[in-house]
């Protein structure tokens, strides 16, 4: 069944700086369960892209398989999308990015898609620091196959069917920091205020940005004993530094005078202003960032917000020294050495 969203919008809704309306960033109607956290994340993506004024057709949406991976159909309807195979989004995104470095790559995956079947591809896309935003919609279970635990389900968490998860959970953010991602954050689908600027910062960072968004599965994993339920996350989360994200195109109106504010300038000259609590960990320090995550985990708390940021990282193209022009724009003249050179090569093989 295919749903179409009515295209009528109030004529007075203002466009963004680039002249696009919010409607230009919307997609098809969601077929996920009513109340699914993933829909809130889609809305945050739409809002972030709208606020950044990204040309929608310059974004490429990539995903794997699962509830989360279906969502690229529900946002940015004017962008090309690629719903690939289970756990393999990172390699498709790598190839696409190699072909055209000028598009913005937005990868969406789930905890099953990333932390189990796609663990290898996730790890290596992070290692090669692919220039993309990688969002995991993390609900701790497999929704489309009716609620089995995933590898991010916390040890001791209890699902709807009552069984206790006995296995250690994988913290994707901690891994991403270890593997070299330059921007790592954790959000909550129930907190759009925090999530939207996280996505904006992630889209502006050069290199791999990873955002793990806890997104309760209302159908299979939202009972109070589940550590991925709305209730639990609201009760047990704590933000790192509160922060403001200022895209480079905007005039900075807010003045931060106090010593507790640190400005991190991203590759495109956007700025993240981090408002530090006294004694808070430094999120630009990799070791402190990991300690911070572990310390909170030990206290039974979920740490959200910007967990780690290092704006000066070389992405895959930098590492491979590929040309600035998109490879998919090169023609015979650029690529073919010609018949005279081939004659020389023949001669060298005689």
């Amino acid at each position: 069944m295919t749903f179409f969203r009515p295209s009528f919008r109030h004529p007075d809704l203002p466009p963004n700086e680039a002249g696009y309306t919010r409607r230009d960033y919307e997609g098809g109607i969601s077929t996920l369960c009513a109340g699914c956290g993933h829909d809130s994340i889609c809305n945050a993506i739409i809002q972030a892209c709208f606020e950044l004024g990204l040309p929608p057709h310059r974004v490429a949406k990539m995903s794997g398989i699962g509830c989360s991976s279906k969502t690229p159909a529900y946002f940015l309807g004017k962008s090309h999308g690629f719903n690939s195979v289970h756990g393999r989004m990172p390699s498709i995104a790598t190839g696409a990015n190699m072909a055209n470095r000028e598009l913005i790559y937005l990868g969406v995956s789930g905890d099953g898609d990333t932390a189990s079947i796609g663990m290898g591809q996730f790890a290596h896309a992070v290692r090669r620091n692919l220039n993309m935003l990688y969002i995991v919609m993390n609900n701790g279970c497999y929704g489309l196959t009716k609620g089995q635990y995933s590898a991010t389900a916390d040890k001791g968490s209890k699902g709807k069917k009552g069984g206790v998860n006995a296995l250690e959970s994988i913290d994707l953010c901690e891994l991403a920091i270890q593997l070299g991602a330059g921007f790592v954050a954790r959000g909550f689908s129930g907190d759009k205020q925090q999530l939207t600027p996280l996505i904006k910062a992630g889209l502006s960072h050069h290199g791999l940005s990873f955002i793990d968004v806890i997104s309760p599965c209302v159908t299979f994993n939202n009972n109070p004993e589940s550590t991925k339920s709305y209730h639990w996350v609201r009760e047990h989360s704590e933000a790192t530094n509160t922060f403001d994200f200022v895209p480079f195109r905007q005039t900075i109106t807010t003045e931060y005078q106090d010593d507790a504010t640190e400005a991190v300038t991203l590759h495109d000259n956007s700025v993240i202003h981090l408002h530090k609590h006294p004694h808070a960990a430094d999120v630009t320090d990799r070791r402190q960032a990991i300690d911070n995550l572990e310390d909170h985990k030990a206290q039974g708390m979920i740490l959200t917000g910007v967990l780690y940021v290092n704006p000066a990282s070389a992405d895959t193209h930098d590492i491979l020294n590929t040309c600035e022009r998109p490879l998919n724009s090169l023609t015979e003249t650029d690529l073919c050495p010609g018949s005279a050179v081939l004659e020389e090569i023949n001669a060298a093989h005689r």
Partner: protein
Amino acid sequence: MKQLQGVNDFVIRFANVNGSGSASANNLFAKAVFRMGVPVSPKNIFPSNIQGLPTWYEVRVNAQGYVGRRGDVDMVVAVNGQTLRQDYDGLAPGGYFLFDSSKPLPEDFRRDDVTVIGVPMTLLCNEAFDNPKMRPLLKNIIYVGALAALLDMELQVLIDSLTKQFRKNPKLAEPNIQALQLGYDYAGEHFQDVCKLSVQRCNLVGDGIIMDGNTAVALGALYAGATVVGWYPITPSTSIIEAFGRYAEKFRIEQDTGRIKAAIVQAEDELAAIGIVIGASWNGARAFTATSGPGISLMSEFLGLAYFAEIPAVLVNVQRTGPSTGMPTRTQQSDLISCAYASHGDTKHPLLFPCDPKECFDMTADAFDLAERLQTPIIVMSDLDLGMNDHYSPPLHWDPERVYDRGKVLNAAQLDELTTTWGRYLDTDGDGICTRTYPGAHPDKGVYFTRGTSRNEYSAYTEDSGAYTRNMERLQLKWETAKTLLPGPRIKLHEPQARLGAVFYGSSTPAVYETIESLRARGIAVDTMRLRAFPFQPGALDFIHHHELVFVIEQNRDGQMRTLLINEGDLTPHKLIAITCYDGLPLASRSLTQAMEEALAERGILLQQLAPGQGDAQ
């Protein structure tokens, strides 16, 4: 004792220890034969090991131009103690046994039908050279020098080769030339006129080249404009990517920036390697990967996606001996079925079968055009023998006027001109191929969602049976279109047409032609068809229909090409006789001839009816 004799017609086998630097000495010998104008085919028979295990290098010298492996060894250069016995016993009666006589031959080496030639290589080497690191390498050059004397070769050709090889480091050329001379002088002095095999200068190689298939594949990809490579190391395909990388460093550097006009990504596994290719092709770059059988197994999931979502991909499969890890450094043609039908569901892929380096170059370049025209994966089926061994081949050629066929891709202007609603999977001209767009091409036209799930003509998700079936039928139509674009078979018929036919492909080619010729000389005419692509064109099936009995010759146990022919051509199985050689070694004409003779003898009536005088080959 009757000694083997032959001018420009013999087989020499070098028995070495892996990792002892013998490869360059052996190659020096083979190249010198070629530079004397004589067709030559060296085959490296090596272990899955870096150092220490036995390795052989078999060189066939043949003035008639038969450059397949022949089988049997006329002369052996035995410098590996581990295999001394085996090499001695395996020598053909009348053959020559050249060994390092620094240590005497064991007493039980008592054949009276071989000529033993002892050259004290280690002693000569240690006497002449002080550097212990250089000695093992120079010892190899000593036996090349001895061979030059025994085979009446022009020493100057070898000296020139060494000078060329070490032109950047002339200091190294000096001891090498000295070693060459040492061996040459010793053998000339002690074994004058002992060996009845010789190489004589002639002019039989024309403008031919000596190249390995993997280098030719890499050049094909370079010339065809491949810019994205996803790969994972696996023998015997790795040298394709290495060669592509070397050529890219040379010919793909952007002059003003020094940056590379290619992205070569070493992936974490073969799944990611093909994923990178598919992602890049989807985004409008020409992309390829190279792998071998185990990689094909892992790539199968993604190949199904590319087939169904209709994304171009070029994949080169350098086949090795399976199943499983099998014999990773030995050759075979045993991935036909796994490639033809790779992935679950009704999935099938066009295959190309190159037979020499020139075809490796041409077919790889063509594969990019075909993949983009047909919007589907194209698999080039090479093998270890073709890919890693040097082959005598016609020179590579590139038409300076050639333009890449990028297939049905709509740009922004073409999208603006459309008067009807565009559909990614809408076939508007009846060839089963639809138009596609690159991401980012147009602000609001030509956008679509790519997926491995079923969809309608406008790429919207659907589980409607009608839409699903229409799509599958269109893919079948595209398969028919593919047959008109793929290279056709090469058929050689007798006049009048023979009643027997032989079908083969790929690296079997030179050995098969030699066998067919030897059968003809003995009065049995066999028409031949060299297949160059799957799916089969009508002409290929006609060849089989028009012959009473057809031998299908291939390098696997199960007769996989035969199975494909029976299945796709709706052929009667008993008409197709499987001739299979699958010991992991390059197909040898002598053993193939024997297998053909036995198969013919089993059908004795045919032999009698096929009297001499059936006509000459066209």
